[in-house]
């Protein structure tokens, strides 16, 4: 247990004290009845669970990747990105109904071209959820998103565009890890009392590369399935993986916002990475916990599946988060794959 004490020993700090803490801001004690967290589909750790939806096809939540076992995608045809169909995306961020400032940061960048040079479509999408009083959270998330975006566009996108193949000397997931470590160093130096989560998605052609620290999430939505690709670096998630608590207990756990991994905490941090080829007509959702704490996965799947325009879907997701209480800042980026 010593390791857990060490990892989780950060106590919640009152607002504006400026103390560095991995404890994210807690919602007010008096939670309106209508804002009670909706019940998500029951999850078996690492196992697929299927939820029947009334009058709709069932979707499966695949839980976490903690078991280290990947789940192969259905045998779809690969996307033909040489045509005129490309990824569409939407992005919405909102302060929510309770907070006075928005500590989330979001970046979306997508480039497509047609020339004899045959450069692949390129996308870079980032969600960062800051923490810490006295505006430190918003500074930390802004530095993180800006720094990672800047590093990756200069180390990968610009040379790729110029035909300089040296960008490929470092694997994409390694470049993303290095970019996050660099951003972490900047935060430690410039905002010593702040911290942030960071979830980044890079698209090259139809390959997706992901890098992740904290509890912002990345979901792949394909057909009737909603699959969480990232694993929360939170105390509650760890306890779930260790079978110390149930999924129901996790919902109301007093330390549900405690992270054991975030940018700005330490000089050294570990970054999770993942690669996946995106199937045609699939959707990818990046979001801060302001969404998934307020809107259950069934609703997320419903909205993403129902709205043909990703920007509209993002707006609806944020509206539902606020309608459920809007206890936290909420940020969503939704990508829609052609096919």
């Amino acid at each position: 247990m010593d390791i857990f004490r060490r990892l989780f020993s950060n106590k919640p700090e009152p607002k504006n004290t400026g103390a560095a803490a991995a404890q994210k801001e807690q919602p007010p004690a008096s939670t309106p009845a209508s804002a009670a967290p909706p019940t998500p589909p029951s999850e078996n750790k690492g196992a697929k669970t299927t939820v029947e939806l009334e009058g709709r096809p069932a979707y499966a939540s695949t839980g976490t990747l903690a078991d280290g076992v990947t789940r192969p995608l259905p045998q779809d045809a690969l996307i033909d990105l040489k045509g005129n169909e490309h990824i569409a995306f939407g992005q919405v961020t909102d302060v929510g109904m309770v907070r006075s400032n928005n500590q989330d940061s979001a970046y979306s960048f997508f480039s497509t071209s047609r020339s004899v040079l045959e450069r692949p479509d390129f996308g870079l999408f980032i969600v960062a959820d800051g923490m810490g009083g006295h505006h430190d959270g918003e500074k930390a998330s802004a530095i993180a998103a800006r720094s990672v975006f800047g590093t990756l566009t200069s180390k990968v996108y610009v040379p790729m565009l110029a035909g300089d193949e040296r960008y490929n000397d470092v694997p994409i997931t390694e470049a993303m890890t290095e970019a996050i470590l660099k951003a972490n160093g900047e935060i430690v130096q410039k905002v010593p009392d702040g911290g942030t989560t960071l979830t980044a998605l890079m698209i090259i052609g139809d390959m997706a590369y992901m890098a992740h620290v904290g509890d912002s999430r990345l979901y792949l939505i394909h057909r009737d399935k909603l699959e969480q690709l990232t694993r929360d670096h939170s105390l509650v998630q760890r306890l779930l993986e260790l079978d110390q608590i149930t999924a129901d207990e996790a919902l109301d756990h007093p330390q549900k916002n405690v992270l054991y991994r975030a940018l700005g905490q330490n000089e050294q941090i570990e970054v999770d990475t993942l690669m996946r080829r995106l199937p045609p007509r699939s959707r990818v959702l990046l979001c801060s916990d302001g969404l998934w704490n307020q809107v259950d996965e069934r609703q997320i799947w419903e909205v993403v599946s129902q709205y043909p325009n990703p920007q509209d879907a993002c707006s609806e997701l944020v509206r539902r988060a606020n309608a459920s209480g809007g206890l936290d800042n909420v940020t969503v980026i939704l990508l829609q794959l052609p096919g």
Partner: protein
Amino acid sequence: MSPTVYREFVLVSSYDSNVWGLKLETGEQVWKFPTNGGIASTPAVDESSKYAVFGSEDTNIYAVDVRTGRVAWTQQTKGRVRSSPRVAHDHVFVGSDDGKVYAMNVLNGRQLWAFDTGAPVRSRPAVTNDMVIVGCESGEIFGISLSGQRKWSFRTRGAIYSSPYVDPNEGVVYFGSSDHFIYALDANSGVSSWRVRTTGPIIGSPVEFKGLLYFGSTDGNIYALNAQTSREKWKYSAGTPIVSSPIVFKGALYFGGTDNYFYCLDADNGKERWKFKTDGAITGGAAVTNDLIVTGSLDHSVYAFPLVL
């Protein structure tokens, strides 16, 4: 020596310059095909013509009838042929020490194209629906269109003897290099996804199954990595260098070691199920059927083990 199983036959290429055709059930010799050089190339069998194709250090590529050992055609290259052929799309794809990858009609050996990699090609090409992927001794790996045009290349810092493995679902190619790394690249573009360093050159070829990537290293370990995250799930230490290529069948992982043992591990957790000691190092791969697994040893013997599940 690496055996190839085709129906009731097992074909064994040997450094004694022969390819041996044996009965799978008994090991009895059916035919023997002599060449003028050692044979490091593992035969590939074309289903429709029943030709077994292989190369020899005498610089030739041979196609022989898998049932009789009678030669159907030969093609000469300008170097020793130690690469193992791949048969796909009615063609044979094979490399040579002359630095070229050849595409030839499997029925008559007629050359469709030759792609110059600039360095000896020792590994077996991987072939997808629209591409040939092959590594060479300079450390470079190439993505070549089926019409023989370069689509991409990627350079490692050591010779590539490991044959690339392409996951058909994800379109990702995995291979090892003498620079100690195992690599994952986008098979369509050659963009590098991840790399993991071991503590020795990787000579054998990886294989992916159910999201786990298995490979051996000359550092003495067999590794199982999550193919998407590159995280290690388990590793098994055989103690001495592993240059053979593992295979996975019905939840078991099989590979040979330079410690003379043939190993069977649980593919999911790396726990040893059994091992069998031969009288020589096992440097080649194994072939598996529904009830037998066949491998060769440098003790000049071919072994067939019953599959115990």
